[in-house]
């Protein structure tokens, strides 16, 4: 129970800083000409590795935080993030989520879906964002960044697991392989 709470806390802190950095770090905008949005990659990672409760909580928290720092109608980013997180969560047993390239593709597709969903919802709720063909190029570039960040999030998750949890107990494995007596003829 404690582990679950601390894991949730850690994820919330991660989501908090991700949304904060997107709004308060100015240099990516100056360097690339636009502000990358990595929250779809984060939700893909959560959908791949965590349970349903984590996906829902992260989509809600990240979406609300993003909208609170934007002119978007409040709550509009929750559904697209929730959707991609849930789709990945539902099909993760059927796709090769451990493969590096599969993770990249998932990140790219999720980013594009979130982008489209957000635009559709904005138009539905009569907000008038600035839209143009140049935006398509940026969304593709952003999708590429999201694709790269999914494996990065997964690797960091594995590293955190190694650093902060006990090694898993496997009764059939010797602690030291050198001390194992190998029987049989050479």
């Amino acid at each position, binding site marked *: 129970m404690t582990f679950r709470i601390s894991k949730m806390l850690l994820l919330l802190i991660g989501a908090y800083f991700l949304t904060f950095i997107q*709004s*308060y770090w100015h240099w990516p905008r100056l360097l690339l000409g636009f*502000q990358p949005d990595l929250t779809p990659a984060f939700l893909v990672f959560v959908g791949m590795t965590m349970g349903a409760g984590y996906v829902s909580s992260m989509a809600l928290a990240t979406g609300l935080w993003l909208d609170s720092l934007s002119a978007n109608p409040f709550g509009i980013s929750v559904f697209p993030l929730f959707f991609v997180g849930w789709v990945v969560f539902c099909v993760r047993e059927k796709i090769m989520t451990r493969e590096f390239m599969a993770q990249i593709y998932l990140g790219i597709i999720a980013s594009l879906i979130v982008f489209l969903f957000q635009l559709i919802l904005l138009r539905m709720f009569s907000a008038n964002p*600035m839209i143009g063909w140049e*935006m398509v190029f940026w969304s593709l570039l952003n999708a590429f960044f999201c694709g790269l960040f999914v494996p990065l999030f997964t690797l960091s998750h594995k590293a955190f697991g190694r650093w902060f949890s006990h090694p898993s107990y496997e009764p059939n494995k010797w602690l030291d392989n050198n001390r194992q007596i190998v029987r049989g003829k050479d």
Partner: protein
Amino acid sequence: MALIVLLIIPGIARAKLKSTIGGMFLPAIGVSSVGNNVLGVLSSKSLNPVQDEIIDQALDSDLKLENIHLRAENLRLRAAADWGLRVPWKTKLAQVIGRDSFNWWRRVKLNLGSQHGIRSNQPLVSIEGYLVGRITEVGLKTSWAVLLGDPNCRFSALIKSSRQQGGIVSPRRFNSNYRIVELTYLPNDIEVRPGNLVVTSGLGGAFPKEIPVGQVEDSWLSRDGLYLEAKVKIHADLNRLEEVRILTEY
């Protein structure tokens, strides 16, 4: 479900909720600014004595560069001070501490709020005195402002030489160049030339009269032929905005 609940609650309650959740980032803003200051102090001190010699050798050229930089800054601040003396309005200097997370809006967050006397709809000008935008949402310690070119920042402007009035709107098609806006609803029987200066008209009371906005780059007749439209390059560089002046009394 959460989305539906959030979108059907009344606008005022939703705005308050948004502001409250946005307030959760205040500690992070504080830590970030303290961290920046500490890093600035640490980077000025060397911990490696071997590097000191190399640094000493480079110091002369560094000092020369710094001198040039300080001269430029001095000129900029003198110009700003002169501008402050020339205009009849009371202003407050604010720092840009954040920007909208989404690229389809042009909004910035400022480090002054209602406790500093900031109110909604107060105009924003750059250090040099060019129009930048207006305040839209005010919190206790911070506030949000829309910049020129945002779909929610429309106002009346005029061409300085001919005194013909029109309206500044965001570009019809998204443009990554932060300095492009459109001047529309100009009479179709006038001549608009590239280089013509555009200033605020003072109509509607949103902005005081004669604040410089930008200059015309191109003009064309609208599709129905009823009015002229012009592409205006604004004077202020909105992408590199670090400090702004808020007109508190005008």
